[in-house]
């Protein structure tokens, strides 16, 4: 058996300097393309990086009942996602637990393209069958397309050379376009919290589009980015990762492993819940959760106090680890007060941000500890001993540059 590869693999493989490969959703992918993760990371924040996001599962949802299906399936109101728009959304089970997050691109009237970390073909088809929606087709096109994310301040300087359509895209805008003669779907989306685009391209056109992109990027330090640098940037962007910060309810054994949208900090997706009458899956349970205030915790940002972080390591005679520490290992959080080791919650992602010059984390805390500025203790290991460092609840995202959502400037030629 040979491992599954993306249609860009033949171009990416020689660019992977350390020769490291790992598995992502059955595909062989590079965790990093350089020895310096920081260098890759700064391509996103200062120049432009390209990430192969092909291993995501992809479905097309088409037909006059497509929006009815998605209205039933999705937490956010799909009617607010007009043609030429994309939407970050989640879908839940009947108990109001999150099954999956993903991005929907409304490409054309009655045509939606969906990406997600787990397969969702049968889930969507079952909804159509249950609701008796006859004019909707849900097709898995995972093998038919490659997807590239082009992210960073110079993303448009590169992409703009290849298509004039990128310039007109607002944040979460989407459009059909052509690059190097190949049809693509372009959206101003990404997982880095920076200016960026994602493009879908048919497998047979993938190398042609890659080559055009690579040539256009040469003058802008276009840098291939692996999964680790992407994940570093997404922590700064306050974006949750399924498998790290939460798990799909489909594969959970008990509710303690499941989480609701409110518990994941996604109440903003439900801002207009009272005004609409959508019958989406999980609605009744979520309304009960809101009314009865049964959310068990919330998901917050945590900014570690730099002085205190330095203190615990320096007291032990060692240098504080501040370079390229990215972790998805659970770290316990305690209440600060008179009682020692008074367990409160945990951090699910931790990153020593080079840009922000401090460690940051995504954390689950009980509702009385979620106000911005609330002080908690985060447990770190110092020469194999548990030590507490001061951390404060912080607003998400940690990093939110104006260019992420601003209209792009045409570079002077």
């Amino acid at each position, binding site marked *: 058996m040979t491992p599954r590869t993306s249609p860009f693999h033949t171009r990416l493989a020689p660019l992977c300097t*350390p020769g490291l490969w790992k598995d992502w959703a059955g595909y062989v992918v590079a965790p990093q393309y*350089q*020895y*310096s*993760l*920081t*260098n890759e990371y*700064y391509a996103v*924040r*200062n*120049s432009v990086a390209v990430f192969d996001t092909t291993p995501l599962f992809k479905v097309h949802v088409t037909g006059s009942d497509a929006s009815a299906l998605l209205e039933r399936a999705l937490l956010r109101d799909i009617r607010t996602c007009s043609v030429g728009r994309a939407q970050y959304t989640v879908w839940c089970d009947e108990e109001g637990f999150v099954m999956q997050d993903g991005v929907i691109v409304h490409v054309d009237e009655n045509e939606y393209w969906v990406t997600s970390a787990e397969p969702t073909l049968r889930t969507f088809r079952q909804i159509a069958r249950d609701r008796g929606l006859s004019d909707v087709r849900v097709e898995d096109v995972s093998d038919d397309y490659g997807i590239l994310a082009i992210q960073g301040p*110079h993303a448009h*300087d590169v992409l703009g050379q290849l298509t004039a359509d990128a310039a007109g895209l607002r944040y979460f805008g989407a459009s059909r376009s052509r690059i190097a003669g190949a049809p693509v779907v372009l959206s101003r989306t990404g997982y880095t919290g920076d200016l960026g685009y994602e493009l879908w391209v048919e497998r047979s056109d993938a190398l042609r589009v890659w080559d055009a992109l690579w040539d256009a990027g*040469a*003058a*802008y*330090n276009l840098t291939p980015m692996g999964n680790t640098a992407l994940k570093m940037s997404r922590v700064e962007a306050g974006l949750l990762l399924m498998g790290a910060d939460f798990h799909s309810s489909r594969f959970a054994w008990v509710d303690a492993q499941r989480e609701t949208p409110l518990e994941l900090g996604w109440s903003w997706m439900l801002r207009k819940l009272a005004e609409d009458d959508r019958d989406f899956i999980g609605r009744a349970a979520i309304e009960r959760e809101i009314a009865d205030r049964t959310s068990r915790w919330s998901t917050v940002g945590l900014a570690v106090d*730099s*002085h205190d972080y*330095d203190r615990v390591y320096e007291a032990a005679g060692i*240098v*504080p*680890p*501040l*370079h*390229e520490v990215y972790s998805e290992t659970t770290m316990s959080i305690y209440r600060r007060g008179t009682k020692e080791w008074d367990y409160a919650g945990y951090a699910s992602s931790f990153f*020593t941000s*080079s*840009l*922000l*010059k401090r460690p940051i984390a995504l954390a689950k805390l009980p509702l009385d500890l979620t106000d911005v500025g609330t002080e908690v203790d985060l447990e770190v290991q110092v020469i194999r001993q548990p030590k507490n460092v001061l951390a404060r609840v912080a607003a998400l995202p940690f990093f939110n540059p104006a260019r992420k959502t601003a209209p792009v400037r045409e570079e002077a030629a």
Partner: protein
Amino acid sequence: MTARERYDAIVIGGGHNGLVNAAYLAKAGLKTLVLERRHLVGGAAITEELVPGYRFTTFSYAISLLRPDVVRDLDLVSHGLMVMPLVNTFQPDTNGDYILLGADDYVNYHEIARHSREDAEAAQDLDHGIARLVRALKPWMDRIPPNPLSDDPSDAAEMAELSSYMSDLDRPVRALLDEFMTSSAADILDRRFENELVKSLYASSGIIGSRVSVRDVASGLVWLVHKMGDYDGVPGQWGFHKGGNGGFTQVLARAVEHYGGEIRTNAPVSRVVYEGGAAHGVELADGTRIDGDIVVSALDPRNTFLSLVDADDLPADLVAHLEAYRYQGSAAKVNFALSGLPAFPGLEGRADIFQGFTNLGPSIPYLEAAFADCAEGRFSRRPFLDCCVQSTIDPGMSPAGKHVMSCFAMYAPYELAAGEWSTERDALADTVQETVEDFFPGFGSLVEHREIVTPHDIESLVGLSEGNIFAGELFESQMFVNRPAPGWNQYRTPIAGYYQCGSGTHPGGCVTGGPGMLAARQILGDRSS
């Protein structure tokens, strides 16, 4: 006649330490004014677009020793601080050989092992030893040094604390410290390494910006100083600020203004106004008086004590010290606008080799010969060059597809034995260009423009005496408790209310911000007592 302007604090000089100092004072609530002689702030840390689209780091070009407290206390991240790593070190020879170090310790081991297996292992031990030593010295970087001449019991206690701290260090750390204080860089290297190219990899840190040979005992300390910094906690690593070091000082300027401080450019100060031993303000070159009971000079010691005030009003022993304080600038810069990347035979097209320092100076004898020229009063016929193609890190530094290359050149003595810098500058640039050509054949054909910065340019443009990039040599006799003079090493001056915060005070030079921070601590402490 309108009333004279009045500020709580007036900072003379908008170099990076002046800006740091002003930001701290403004943050503490003082009505603070920065007066800068030139049309832009930044001092020696500026970025200028001398050719459209090409941005040159005119003088200072990298960051490592910036004090973490400055970043945190002034919330510099929110004002745009962005330091990217200089990940690679490229040490080529003229015979096609090279050492290319990067981010991975074991890749680096194997790269050095290509030249000598024993040297590769020795490098691991030396790197770890320096890292431990630097960690041990770090607390003393971030505190006001004690006054060695003071009768004050607190100073005596601090001197005692310092000496007991040093004698309590782990023996290997203490031994390495002694070695760096008493050995030349070349001797330290000869004891550990056999391969010339490996030695040269380390040796250049011992001469940067200093009129010393790699065989001079003073080069050990110069080397150590250059390793005192870190990049995100990685000891001895350097970074490149977005937009160059001028980008960094613009961040500082935003911080000053954020905290309510005011910056005035094109405002040269002619003297500090004082009476009865106390400062009362400043007088500008155009005769304007500005009142303020706190006046801080961010200039170098010569300007601070011998130009802005009357030396006759200062204690004779201080004046004697200041007159003996050594500047003797010995470094130059040539910044190139390039039509493409320089090509190293066998590594053509590799932009990554330039994402860091490229050191041209492949052996100890090469570096010694470079110094021999300097000792005879001429610039090195084959200089040591510390180069960086900064546009490979930050595409904003040059037009798309083009590049800027900063070349720091050793040695270029402030005083030439024959000829004048005004007529020798092009010859210097030609020499630098030919030297790069020795390593990167065809380099000359890429050059679209070059900017030449001699020690005289550094002195006349930045105001650093004799063009010394550190505001005074990094000699033991001029550092820590002796910087700039024993007894006057705590940011105060003999004139009450008049302070010093330039790189000529501890822990300057280099871009540290430490003098600005510590001087502010002293000023605010004096105010509250």
